[in-house]
């Protein structure tokens, strides 16, 4: 693969309701921010990828409303409807395909629509939608499948919530840093068994942007480039009932491809820090298994053994993760941004010392129907 790099990053703070800003405002602010970060001007950007969802925005062809704010006047703009990691994947492909630079920008305001309606609308209208299943209840089924298969406890998931909300205090952008105990999580309201309120991510408003550049333009940018060493995504069946929810099959496949591309054979030894899409507490250990950091059913053990703590061998979600801030679509791009900041050595009080290789991960569809994996490095 040609050498391509992330040369700029920007994100808004994440909040429950950003009343004084429209999606247009949010997109403009991170577009301006990412250009400033990279030290590039709009003239250096030759194509733009926006990431949006029409049901979230309540607008047909939602991307059309933010093109101008993304600096897209008279430029080549295209759109990905899905998580930001997938938008960034497409942006990387465009640079590999001959563009010098791609600006990728994602936005969402969970405060403006009804997430239960919107995520219910992910499902098949004939067999699933009318029985009311949506993101939380589907995830509860996945959590139960996972617990049942491997004999896992709710407490082991609660520990993830405790860790990530605590890590959130080190991230100035986080929506919900919290000082919690396992008991707090266990005693929080039961939303959908086995998920309690504090097992679930908040719904946030926010936006994020990155610039991906080819080798030549990575030298023009003022930032230290973060090199894209391996990227892959993979999708599973649409119907939940066709899938084994206790095993992240498509993540296994996507991560193997990304590792192969990056020349990594033992990820647990090669990767210094992980930012993954923990929309619910149980997802972190399940995705760690899919990513090949441990055997199936052993994900919760990585936290019990202290491996995924800030101080551990493989810190996971030092930013506080999605559990601390969850702007839909944006959250995956935020994982790439956090990984980039780690590799630039600019992650402030959440910095993992001497991080050289980082993994960022995003999901799309219910219960991680598709996964996108990024292996990034500070070294070309």
């Amino acid at each position, binding site marked *: 693969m040609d050498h391509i790099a992330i040369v700029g990053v920007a994100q808004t703070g994440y909040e429950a309701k950003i009343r004084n*800003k*429209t999606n*247009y405002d949010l997109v*403009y602010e991170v577009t301006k921010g990412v250009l400033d970060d990279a030290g590039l001007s709009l003239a250096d950007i030759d194509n733009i990828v926006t990431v949006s969802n029409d049901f979230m925005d*309540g607008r047909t062809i939602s991307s059309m409303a933010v093109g*101008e704010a993304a*600096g897209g006047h008279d430029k080549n703009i295209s759109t990905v409807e899905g998580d930001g990691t997938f938008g960034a994947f497409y942006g990387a492909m465009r640079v590999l395909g001959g563009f010098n630079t791609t600006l990728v920008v994602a936005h969402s*305001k969970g405060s403006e629509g009804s997430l239960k*309606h919107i995520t219910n609308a992910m499902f098949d209208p004939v067999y699933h939608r009318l029985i009311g299943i949506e993101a939380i209840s589907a995830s509860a089924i996945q959590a139960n499948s996972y617990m049942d298969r491997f004999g896992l406890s709710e407490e082991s998931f609660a520990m993830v919530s405790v860790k990530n909300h605590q890590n959130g205090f080190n991230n100035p952008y986080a929506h919900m840093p919290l000082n919690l105990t396992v008991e707090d999580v266990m005693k929080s309201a039961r939303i959908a068994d086995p998920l309690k309120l504090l097992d679930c991510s908040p719904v946030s408003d926010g936006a994020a942007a990155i610039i991906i550049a080819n080798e030549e333009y990575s030298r023009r940018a003022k930032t230290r480039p973060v090199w894209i060493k391996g990227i892959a995504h993979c999708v599973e069946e649409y119907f939940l009932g066709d899938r084994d929810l206790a095993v992240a099959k498509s993540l296994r496949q996507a991560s193997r491809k990304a590792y192969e591309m990056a020349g990594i054979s033992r990820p647990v030894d090669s990767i210094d820090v992980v930012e993954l899409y923990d929309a619910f507490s149980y997802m972190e250990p399940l995705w760690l298994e899919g990513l090949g950091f441990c055997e199936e059913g052993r994900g919760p053990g990585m936290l019990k053994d202290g491996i995924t703590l800030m101080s551990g061998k493989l810190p996971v979600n030092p930013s506080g993760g999605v559990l601390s801030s969850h702007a839909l679509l944006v959250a995956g791009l935020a994982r790439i941004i956090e990984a980039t900041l780690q590799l630039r050595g600019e992650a402030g009080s959440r910095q993992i010392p001497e991080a050289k290789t980082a993994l960022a991960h995003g999901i799309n569809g219910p219960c991680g129907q598709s996964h996108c994996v990024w292996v990034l490095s500070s070294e070309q």
Partner: protein
Amino acid sequence: MVSTELGYDQLLSIAFSVPMPYEWSVGVYGSLFFHEIMNHNRFLGVRCPDCNKVYMPPRRLCGPCFKELDELVVLPNEGTIEAFSIVNYPFVDPNTGEQRPIPYTYGYIRIDGADTIFSHIINETDTRLIQVGMKVKAVFREKELMQGNVQDIKHFEIVNP
């Protein structure tokens, strides 16, 4: 054995007619625009310092200049018809859920002093009495009924036809 015979009228469909709720932020400039209507029965625009274009309603950016805009300008409640269409098919008003009376005239109106064009209803549905280039004036809702949205303007009416 299960029979696969099925009459055409036995094929099923699923009806879904519940609207999804939204609450969209209007933003700072949009809020100022509607407050100006509510307080003074007039419009606001914003000027780009680079290309001098006046956007109405006001917005945060000039797209071609990629310039952030902050020079708000007060605009009158009058303008010129740039284009129009008399619409004759039924349309359910998204605000009320009721059918809007037909025909109605959809107008493309340049407010005096603005470079962009505003869209609203013109209360003239007779093609013999309306033409491009005519001056129109905004008719506002009674102050106590205003809600801070585009329906605070009832319609535009032709001035001195």
